[in-house]
């Protein structure tokens, strides 16, 4: 083999070829591959993150539910207490009211009784007087009853 233009021609061809492959094939493809690798890694990482978030959300969810349960129990207990208090209060108030009504009606009864007593007294005294008048009319005699009549007359004077 001699050193000829063919050798240098082939060398130049080779250098151009390498440059072309580097610029138009190697670099676009390797960068695309790297990009793909990072995309896949990102995807996997975000999937993992999503899973973690779901776990966190589940924990949060059960915590909230537990809290709500406790709260509901509290509310129910409080309501029970309050209803008991209301019932007790109502009992006390109604007792007082009943006592008041009873005492009022007792007073009324007393008054009515007195009125009735008075009326009865009047009636009895009237009847007694009427009876007495009749008896007096039938039995009275100057001699027998002079002293009584005198006494009554004395009293009347």
């Amino acid at each position, binding site marked *: 083999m001699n050193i000829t233009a063919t050798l240098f021609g082939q060398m130049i061809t*080779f250098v151009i070829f390498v440059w072309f492959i580097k610029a138009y094939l190697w670099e676009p493809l390797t960068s695309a591959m790297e990009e793909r690798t990072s995309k896949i890694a990102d995807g996997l990482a975000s999937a993992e993150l999503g899973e973690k978030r779901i776990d966190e959300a589940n924990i949060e969810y059960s915590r909230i539910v537990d809290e709500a349960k406790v709260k509901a129990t509290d509310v129910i207990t409080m309501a029970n207490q309050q209803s008991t208090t209301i019932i007790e209060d109502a009992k006390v108030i109604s007792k007082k009211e009943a006592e008041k009504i009873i005492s009022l009606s007792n007073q009324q009864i007393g008054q009515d009784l007195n009125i009735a007593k008075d009326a009865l007294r009047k009636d009895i005294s009237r009847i007694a007087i009427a009876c007495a008048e009749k008896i007096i009319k039938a039995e009275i005699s100057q001699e027998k009853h002079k002293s009584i009549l005198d006494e009554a007359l004395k009293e009347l004077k």
Partner: protein
Amino acid sequence: MSQSDGPATDNPVEYISHHLQPLQYGDGFWQINVDTMFFSTLIMFGVMWVAYRVGKNVSVGAPTGAQNILETLIDFVNGLVKEAFPKPNKIVGPLGLTIFVWVFLMNAMDLIPVDLLPKAAEMIGIVGQDGKHALKVVPTTDPHTTFAMALTVFAICIYYNVKNKGIGGYFKSFLVHPFGITLAPINFVLTMVEEIAKPLSLALRLFGNMFTGELVFLLIAILPWYIIPIPGSMWAIFHILVITLQAFIFMVLTIMYISLASEESH
């Protein structure tokens, strides 16, 4: 592999020597092996066309078709480069890929029947300086091609040596390696031989393998036509291995040599 016509078997020496005769024009330095230049450049343009199309329509998503194949190749070459290089290197990857693809395809020209393209060229009037058919279709059977690549790789090695060790450091490595400074002259001779042996072995290994491969095809071609298919097909099948292996070896050695040149001085 090839039709064996009358004159070939009548005069086997002339037949073989004609097939090993490149299509040359010019004399002295300006001697140009047209066939070598033509076929290697043709293959180069073919590869460039595919590379350009794939590189232009590159997709980040799931790769398809040619991109898939080329990505596999790039991954393969990149794996070798990453193994050999401690720090990233921008040149050696594309260089290795180019060498592998180019050498592989140039070698693969060997599988085209030996008489087909020379006969076709003769028919359209492309003949050697002696008026007879002369066309070497396998560029790697021409030492110009293999030496061109090996010397380019050698130049890149020297560039990295000087870049990483400095001119003084590079020269010093000739004197102190492998026996230490006390035996500097012996070291110089040994390292010199070692360095020159690199491109020489690189070029001659590929050239030798391809040349002998072609020669065996020619020897098979001068057998009677009814015997040709058996050794011809066997050698072709075996040769597929040689083609791939030689392309791979050239690439791996290139990566190794540049990796050695990129080492910091120690």
